């Protein structure tokens, strides 16, 4: 069991003009499930590989369980990693795949067998032990890859997008299994994904990365309800948050000359206003600023897409609500997330309390 501490970790690839990972500070507590999430190229995999020891650290320090591991070989870091394409040894049977790392550590045979059998029963792959990886399905290969990590009984699990090669349904069920397994073993885990749904559902602590920097660290709900930057606001949540360019003038939010909300608590100036589609409802009645473009039916809900003064708007509604070509947008200004237009940082620190009782209609 171990915690991980990253101090100003940087990575510059040879020949690259700027670093891929720029001064990341991160504290991962013992037993925590931390998910690193971000768009491709944000440095999340590089960060994970630096923790694993597969990439050198350009500057900064990584400590696992209080030991600085910068110059340690992957084998000596007491970690186990699950790869995206499983990386099973194709010429070895499942049993050999699981026991290979233990044999290299000169573990006694009886102990190896005990651990392999334990892992096999946890993952229900006992019947597959004598097969070669090529005779396994994607989901089974994934289990074997996890088994290879479990038998090690490491102090840290590292997952590098382990579910991206599976089909959607299997991904959801494996997601649940990984979550339960981690809870049961209580091993500190770092998980990399680009899928924000996967990130939200798995994480104790979510780390959103963008262009090599940490945008925000927090629980999934914190990030969902209090995004500290425009990037996090747009990245977390599905369907994505509405983001509009506007201005704050004396406590009023003005978008393209139209006053859309009163009593917002933010200094005057250009802002990006964010509103979750769930927080927006549309009313029919002949007038309004919302022009309907198209509707996505999701079964229990529907996503209504349109625009308002040329800015795209989407709203999540129940299927029984009537639709029209032109509608009024109704929302509570307390649900607005306001960000500085230049820096992208949040400007309304607390929800706008005074306007909470009177819904805005545009």
């Amino acid at each position, binding site marked *: 069991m171990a915690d991980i501490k990253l101090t100003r970790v940087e990575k510059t690839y040879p020949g690259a003009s700027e670093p891929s990972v720029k001064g990341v500070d991160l504290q991962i507590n013992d037993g925590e499930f931390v998910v690193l999430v971000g768009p491709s190229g944000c440095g999340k995999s590089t960060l994970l590989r630096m923790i694993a020891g*597969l990439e050198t650290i350009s500057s900064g320090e990584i400590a696992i369980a209080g030991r600085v591991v910068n110059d340690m070989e992957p084998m000596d870091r007491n970690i186990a990693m699950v790869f*995206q394409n*499983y990386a099973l*040894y194709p010429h070895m049977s499942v049993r050999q795949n699981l026991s290979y790392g233990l044999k290299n550590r000169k573990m006694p045979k009886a102990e190896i067998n005990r651990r392999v059998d334990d892992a096999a029963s946890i993952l229900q792959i006992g019947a597959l032990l004598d097969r070669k990886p090529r005779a396994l399905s994607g989901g089974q290969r994934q289990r074997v890859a996890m088994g290879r990590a479990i038998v090690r009984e490491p102090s840290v699990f590292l997952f590098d997008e382990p579910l991206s090669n599976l089909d959607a349904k299997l991904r959801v069920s494996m997601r649940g299994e990984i979550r339960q397994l981690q809870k049961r073993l209580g091993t500190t885990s770092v998980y990399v994904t680009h899928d924000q749904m996967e990130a939200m559902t798995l994480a104790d602590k979510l780390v959103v990365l963008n262009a090599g920097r940490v945008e925000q660290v927090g629980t999934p709900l914190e990030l969902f309800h209090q995004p500290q930057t425009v990037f996090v606001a747009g990245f977390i949540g599905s369907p994505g948050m509405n983001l509009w360019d506007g201005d704050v003038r004396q406590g009023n939010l003005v978008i393209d000359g139209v006053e859309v909300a009163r009593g917002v608590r933010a200094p005057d100036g250009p802002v990006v206003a964010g509103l979750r589609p769930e927080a927006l409802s549309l009313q029919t009645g002949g007038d309004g600023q919302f022009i309907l473009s198209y509707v996505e039916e999701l079964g229990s809900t529907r996503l209504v897409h349109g625009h308002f003064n040329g800015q795209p708007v989407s709203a999540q509604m129940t299927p029984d609500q009537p639709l029209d070509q032109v509608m009024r947008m109704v929302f509570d200004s307390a649900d607005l997330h306001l960000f500085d237009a230049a820096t992208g940082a949040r400007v309304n620190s607390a929800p706008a309390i005074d306007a909470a009782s009177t819904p805005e209609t545009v």
Partner: protein
Amino acid sequence: MVENRPLLTFLSHLVLILGVISVALPVWLALVASTHPSSAFVSGRVPLWFGPDGLSSYIKMMDQGASTSGTPPIGQMMFNSLVMALIITVGKIVISMLSAFAICYFRFPFRVLAFWAIFITLMLPVEVRIVPTFEVVANLGMLNSYAGLSIPLIASATATFLFRQVFLTLPDELTEAARIDGAGPMKFFWDHALPLSRTNIAALAVILFIYGWNQYLWPLIVTTDESYYTIVMGIKRMASVVDDAPRWNDIMAVVVMAMMPPVLVVVAMQKLFVKGLVETEK
């Protein structure tokens, strides 16, 4: 693409049959000629069916060899050829595999240069560098030895290139997983790189064995002691006799015997050979 047109079927069979004939006819002629008495060839007509002598030429050649043309017994020459072919095969595979492994998995100065330097030797087969190579071998005192017969033929760009391609198909994650599992470079080589290129090694071994077995010019140059003669040169020596017509029946018997080991190797390794050349999944 599967097409079903009678004309196309006919044409493709025709091409295949012509191919078989052109490959098989010389072998057939050799086989037939070895069963005739030597007088049968004086007429200038090539016999197309087995003659009356049966296996007597074979027995004679196995027994006493072609002593009249100054060659050692067939067995000795076959053994020499076998030793030379095996040393070349094993040596080429070991050296090229190790150098391909170095080129693919280690970052050292002039790595790319090293690879291209090896690659460019493709343009320098023994025939091109025969004089300097002979001088080196002679100065090292390796004339008339198995070392002299095989070592100059061992360095191989083709095999290095082939193994490089094989290693490049192994995914990086495999190497990384092995590193996390605590396998150092040489352990990775033994535990993963080697078993995963098993079929490629087999395919290459077949090709290289035949290459080694068929060497003619080089053994002719470095051996003067007849106890190191190889079978392929022996055939040539038997054909060029002075003051006599070549004894074609005996020569052809030796030719047929000389063909046997490569044929056996191909037949025995065929399954692995084909797999090694076509298999892509790792």
